[in-house]
């Protein structure tokens, strides 16, 4: 049984009005324990609407969301349980910081779970460590931190609830290359050391190519490609056609292929790219 599953999930915004629009159409998705799933798609493809269903924030117009095999809308208590088991960290989460100290902000979630003070403290410290928050920051105002630091505090606030599934909507958006690498590395490390499931929403294949075990490509409210990173890149032309950025390296191969050269296009890392081009050159009798 999958840890999390959607069955024929459909969601309509503005039902009964002239602005009716189907944001999700018949989505069937399953997530296993311990996976790192990347959901990618361009703006308006339905990816954010999809993840807001996974912890019960939005209720499906049709279809179901199953957590450990149980419909999260079966009862009020099931919905409430889903909110704690599935932690959702929104885009630009640093705008949601509100407490007077970093410690209080991170502890807001665990406190609402009804834990004891000692347990709350443990949760907060564990989460802070995952995102590299220094001890000295704990009593500082979160608003005195830099943008990247605020982002990490906000992510820690969701991690501190120790959800079975952690969902992050565009965790690296707007950060510089160093900040991006740090946040993504942190998330990867969190998954490896806790064994928990992580779902990352992104419009950048570059961000998730190296860490995702499974990729779901969304277009017009439904997945158009699902598979390992390699499998999805085999259809790299399709990624371009749905308006996604493919990594620069993949672009080189797409252009070669478009010019009639027989090359693979499921390439996104430097060593692989080098190998494939050297093979190509050798075949054509160069590079001796």
């Amino acid at each position, binding site marked *: 049984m999958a840890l999390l599953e959607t069955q024929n999930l459909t969601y309509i915004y503005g039902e009964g009005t002239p602005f009716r629009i189907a944001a999700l159409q018949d989505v069937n998705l399953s997530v296993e324990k311990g996976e790192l799933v990347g959901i990618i798609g361009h703006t308006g493809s339905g990816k954010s609407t999809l993840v807001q269903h996974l912890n019960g924030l939005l209720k499906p117009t049709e279809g179901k969301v199953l957590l450990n095999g149980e419909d999260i809308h079966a009862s009020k208590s099931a919905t409430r349980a889903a909110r704690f088991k599935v932690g959702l960290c929104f885009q630009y989460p640093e705008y949601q910081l509100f407490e007077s100290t970093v410690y209080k902000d991170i502890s807001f979630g665990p406190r609402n779970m009804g834990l004891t003070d000692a347990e709350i403290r443990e949760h907060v410290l564990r989460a802070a460590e995952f995102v590299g928050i220094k001890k000295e920051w704990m009593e500082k105002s979160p608003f005195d931190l830099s943008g990247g630091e605020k982002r990490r505090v906000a992510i820690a606030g969701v991690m501190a609830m120790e959800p079975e599934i952690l969902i992050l909507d565009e965790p690296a958006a707007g950060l510089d290359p160093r*900040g991006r690498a740090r946040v993504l590395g942190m998330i990867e490390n969190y998954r490896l050391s806790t064994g928990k499931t992580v779902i990352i929403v992104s419009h950048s294949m570059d961000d998730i190519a190296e860490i995702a075990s499974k990729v779901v490509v969304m277009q017009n409210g439904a997945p158009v490609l699902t598979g390992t990173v390699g499998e999805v890149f085999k259809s790299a032309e399709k990624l371009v056609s749905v308006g996604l950025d493919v990594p620069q390296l993949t*672009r*080189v191969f797409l252009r070669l292929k478009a010019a009639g050269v027989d090359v693979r296009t499921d390439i996104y890392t430097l060593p692989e*790219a080098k190998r494939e081009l050297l093979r190509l050159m050798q075949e054509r009798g160069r590079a001796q």
Partner: protein
Amino acid sequence: MSENIIEFQNVSFRYEADESEKPLPLCVENVSLNIKKGDFVAVLGHNGSGKSTLAKLSNSILIPESGRVLVDGMDTADESLSYDIRRTVGVVFQNPDNQIVASIVEEDVAFGPENLGVPPDELRRRVDDALKAVGMYEYRHHEPHKLSGGQKQRVAIAGMIAMLPECIVLDEPTAMLDPKGRKEVMDTVRRLNRERGMTVVFITHFMEEAATADRVVVMDNAKILLDGTPQAVFSKAELLKKIGLDVPKAAALAAELRANGIPIRDGVLTADALADNILELLGDA
């Protein structure tokens, strides 16, 4: 008349600390930089390197602590010149949502020039022209908040163009956009530079965007670390990595291929250029 539209002469700047606190460190330190008319200059640097402060110094939003900034010869420290300075150099910021002031696209674009006292007929012409220049003319009667991020940013750029600046400074205008929006903005800015000769200073942390500029300036730790053609700057891969930046991936691949005896031309920085170079080599075989 100088051939430089903006001159930074030994400019230093720091933000004011709260009372009782120690003074903050300089975030621009002794920077000298000339922006030539008609150039497309990319400014690269990670967060906190001082690149955004440079943008704000360029049209007298901030005034240097020491040194001078001259805009077409006008000293930004002279308050009586600030209208002329801002008419010459326009700045576009990162978040399009913070830059929209009106509820209809064309009214938003008209806001700046109207404040400059442009007469109605001329205003109409300028707004239409600016919206056409960014490819948003069909949306002139739309509500800005319903546009996509890339479209909003293009409206913000149109608002700048309508003031007929000689130079636009864009501070990470693509950081909050998706790939499609990023491309729309990049294409628009390139066209303005090429077709209208508008000087562009493009602040970014995307290496790929900097690769197609005439000149790349790299900021680190409040100072200019590198300044040259994209080819020259991106040949310093080690140094860039040390300060948390990188070279475009296609350039890194080109370097690997060269190291393995494949004669890729120097200065190949983009995926398209690399693919074309490989096709040429295959053709010769």
